[in-house]
């Protein structure tokens, strides 16, 4: 039995040693609310050491290291950082102190003691580590043979705003300077009360009339009978020495600061070992672990989003300005992850937002929707970009009362009851299905390639004696055009409005298509009702082809597939932008000309927001960079290397 225990203990210690030695995620404490992971391995493998070195030289990073830290090198391989593992940076909160921790993996036989923290003071920390703290003791560092840990801390301001906490540690809770100032003048004579009979009230009519002074000089004012003037004149202002007030305030502040600093130093040092080897860590945190190790360059995770919102919002200001109570407001968001990934020449930022059960229940059906299949027949092949919305109108209207109760009512607590009544009223009064029949909730908008139009303009013709007359000429111009569509199963009201507009000469109706002239711009828009789809566009040829069932679309099905997977999609084909700008005659500043021309080698810029799955909303922004480098990060490094110094200084 004893031997078994001994063997298991040894194995456990060995496993702990190994786990502490491997991925530093084991050292990210449970208290961490925000964590960033820098995946060195993916960054190096997806670019190249040689390019990274040259880029760092160009950015002046090695020069900074030499000047500030006396580390002379022109290669990141000379640095003590282990490039096959990941670094972690986290932010942890306790009720009294906030910590920022940095975990850096180190190579075997590193020489960090020779190059860093030379002005730090050593102290006896945990066994197996070299520990030091900064002169002000607010930063503690420790390292062993394979990792470096740096921790800084700051006092949580609200901790000492609590009178009990302040009293326990001898902190004097004081009002702010303004309140102290007001207290000082509590006994000063009062200015005339606005409720007095003689008080002046703003009268708009009087204000607008010509006003004449009834008296001509100050002598006519009877100062002797003015009670406020007497009181102010008689008052002994020497009783109020503002310099005493300032001194008192400064003394209290200084004492408090000094006490808090001492506490911070003590707590930082005492808690440092608990963060160096946390008893409870984030090793099993899916939000932190589950990302593509091969392609993710940087990964970010954040929890307690509601607490973060409440802490960052200036609640008092919002309350004062807008009357909104953000303390009662909860977003329903639980956690957030962001990953910067690259796959070949595509750079991508993927995010995943966790939502609580209530929100998931409310939103799930709203975004459980498919775009009308028939849209696939009407996708213009040669488009510059598009965006689409895909939601269920009926489910949204049914959920509206719940949205009001959940999100808006807490913000205006004084109107909570009336809002609840309004919420129920919308449920009772709205016929969600009938409204949904007007607009299903799917909508797609395409920006077509530019189209040529004939426009008229005024010019001058001169005779032999240079007398000129105005003549009307025509010219060809390019203008952008669009095509949009949405599903409507009940189009009666739209058709009625359109027919009424025709009757009023606001619209023309020609062969089944309504035309709206935009007089100032010499443009027109066209409206067509076909099957259960409403089309609105600026190209008559497209709508005519749709009407006649002769519209050709090759890319319809692939685009529809893209759109159906998301609640929101936006795509812009960057490669078409330079040519479009040229056709439209939009000028480009010389300094940006080269970069702008390069856009023609880029691919699509895409934004996608997915539907709700398992309590999460996934989204992504991606950009296809030029293929010549075969890797997005290589392309960016090349841009840095080939750019001028001025531009780098501007960027950094």
């Amino acid at each position, binding site marked *: 039995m004893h031997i078994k225990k001994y063997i298991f203990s040894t194995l456990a210690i060995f496993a702990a040693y190994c786990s502490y030695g491997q991925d530093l995620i084991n050292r990210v404490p449970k208290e961490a609310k925000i964590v960033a992971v820098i995946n060195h391995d993916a960054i190096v493998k997806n670019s190249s050491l040689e390019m990274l070195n040259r880029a760092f030289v160009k950015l002046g990073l090695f020069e900074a290291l030499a000047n500030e830290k006396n580390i002379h090198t022109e290669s990141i391989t000379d640095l003590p950082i282990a490039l096959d593992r990941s670094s972690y940076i986290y932010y942890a909160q306790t009720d009294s102190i906030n910590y920022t921790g940095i975990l850096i993996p180190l190579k075997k036989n590193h020489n960090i003691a020779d190059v860093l923290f030379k002005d730090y003071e050593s102290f006896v920390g945990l066994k197996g580590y070299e520990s030091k703290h900064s002169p002000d003791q607010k930063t503690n560092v420790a390292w062993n043979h394979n990792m470096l840990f740096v921790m800084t801390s700051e006092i949580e301001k609200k901790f000492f705003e609590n009178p009990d906490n302040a009293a326990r540690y001898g902190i004097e809770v004081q009002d702010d300077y303004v309140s102290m100032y007001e207290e000082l003048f509590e006994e000063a004579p009062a200015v005339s009360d606005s409720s007095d009979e003689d008080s002046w009230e703003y009268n708009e009519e009087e204000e607008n009339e010509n006003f004449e002074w009834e008296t001509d000089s100050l002598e006519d004012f009877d100062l002797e009978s003015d009670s406020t003037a007497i009181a102010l004149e008689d008052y002994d202002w020497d009783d109020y020495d503002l310099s005493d007030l300032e001194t008192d305030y400064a003394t209290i502040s200084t004492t408090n600061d000094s006490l808090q600093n001492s506490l911070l130093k003590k707590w930082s040092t005492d808690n440092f070992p608990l963060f160096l080897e946390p008893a409870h860590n984030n090793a099993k945190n899916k939000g932190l672990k589950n990302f593509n190790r091969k392609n993710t360059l940087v990964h970010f995770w954040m929890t307690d989003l509601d607490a973060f919102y409440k802490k960052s919002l200036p609640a008092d200001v919002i309350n004062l300005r807008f009357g909104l109570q953000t303390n009662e407001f909860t977003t329903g968001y639980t956690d957030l992850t962001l990953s910067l990934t690259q796959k070949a020449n595509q750079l991508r930022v993927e995010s995943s937002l966790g939502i609580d059960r209530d929100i998931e229940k409310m939103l799930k059906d709203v975004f459980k929707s498919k775009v009308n299949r028939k849209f696939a027949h009407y996708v213009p092949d040669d488009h510059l970009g598009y965006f689409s919305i895909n939601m269920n109108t009926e489910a949204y209207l049914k959920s509206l009362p719940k949205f009001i109760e959940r999100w808006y009512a807490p913000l205006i607590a004084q109107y909570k009851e009336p809002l609840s009544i309004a919420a129920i009223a919308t449920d009772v009064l709205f016929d969600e299905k009938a409204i949904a029949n007007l607009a299903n909730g799917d909508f797609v908008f395409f920006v077509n390639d530019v189209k040529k139009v004939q*426009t008229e*303009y*005024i*010019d*001058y013709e*001169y005779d*032999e*004696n*240079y007398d*000129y007359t105005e003549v009307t000429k025509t*010219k060809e*111009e390019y*203008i952008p055009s669009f095509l949009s569509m949405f599903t409507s199963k009940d189009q009666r009201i739209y058709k009625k409005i359109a027919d009424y507009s025709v009757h009023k000469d606001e619209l023309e109706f020609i062969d089944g298509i309504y035309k709206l002239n935009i*007089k*100032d*711009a*010499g*443009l027109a828009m066209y409206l067509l009702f076909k099957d259960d789809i409403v089309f609105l566009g600026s190209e008559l040829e497209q709508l005519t082809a749709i009407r006649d069932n002769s519209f050709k679309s090759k890319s319809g099905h692939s685009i529809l597939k893209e759109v159906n997977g998301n609640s929101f999609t936006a795509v812009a084909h960057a490669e078409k932008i330079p040519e479009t700008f*040229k056709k439209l*005659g*939009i*000028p*480009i*500043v*010389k*300094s940006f*000309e080269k970069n702008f021309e390069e856009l023609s080698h880029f691919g699509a810029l895409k934004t996608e927001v997915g539907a709700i799955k398992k309590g999460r909303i996934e989204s992504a922004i991606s950009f296809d960079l030029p293929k010549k480098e075969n890797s997005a990060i290589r392309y960016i490094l090349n841009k840095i290397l080939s750019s001028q110094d001025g531009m780098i200084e501007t960027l950094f």
Partner: protein
Amino acid sequence: MNKKYRTLLFGAIISITSLLTGCFEFVEKIDLQNNGSGAITATLNMSKSKTKVASLMKLSSFGSFKIPSETTVKAEMEELATTLKNTKGISNVKYTLDFKNYIATLSCNFAHIEALNEFSKALSKKTKVSITSYNSYSFNPSAGVFKRNYTYTSDMGKEFGKLSNDDQQLFNDAIYTNITRFEKSIKTQQHNQAKVSEDKKTSLLRVKAIDLLRNKANLTNNISLIN
């Protein structure tokens, strides 16, 4: 003169007119009597770019440039006309603004051509841009000599130089036209690009805006009349 203000103003003029792909014409017509009095009409015709102008006017700003609204343009024009009316020697001031074709016209009579220089001075004072330093007129009725002095201003050229080569070429279609009509016939004129009408009483000078901006064209002209 406030150099920064002048540079900003020229930058705004260059950038906004370049947004119109350079398709505009500025026509300045002067009818001069023998006694030195006359009339002047200045027309800015942006009709060829009206689609773009119409689109721009719907925005409040484009990049860093504020786009004036129709109301602002009317107010500014009214102020310009008032300044002109208050200039000694100027009378019968009229203006039109066509917001369909984007054509603006300003006209007035003058007792003597130098009154236009007074107007330029008043405008310079108002806008703090020294217009008189680069454009002025004079007429000697007894000698029958009309002079227009023009000096290139480098600030405008600098702002123009910031545009790409392609965009500078867009100004190829922008034209400045000056028509000066006399009661007497023209004997000689100094400007080699200026033309004389069939009846010999009108001088026409047309230059590309791009040449003015690049200092490749000049508006200085001395016209002698037959006495």
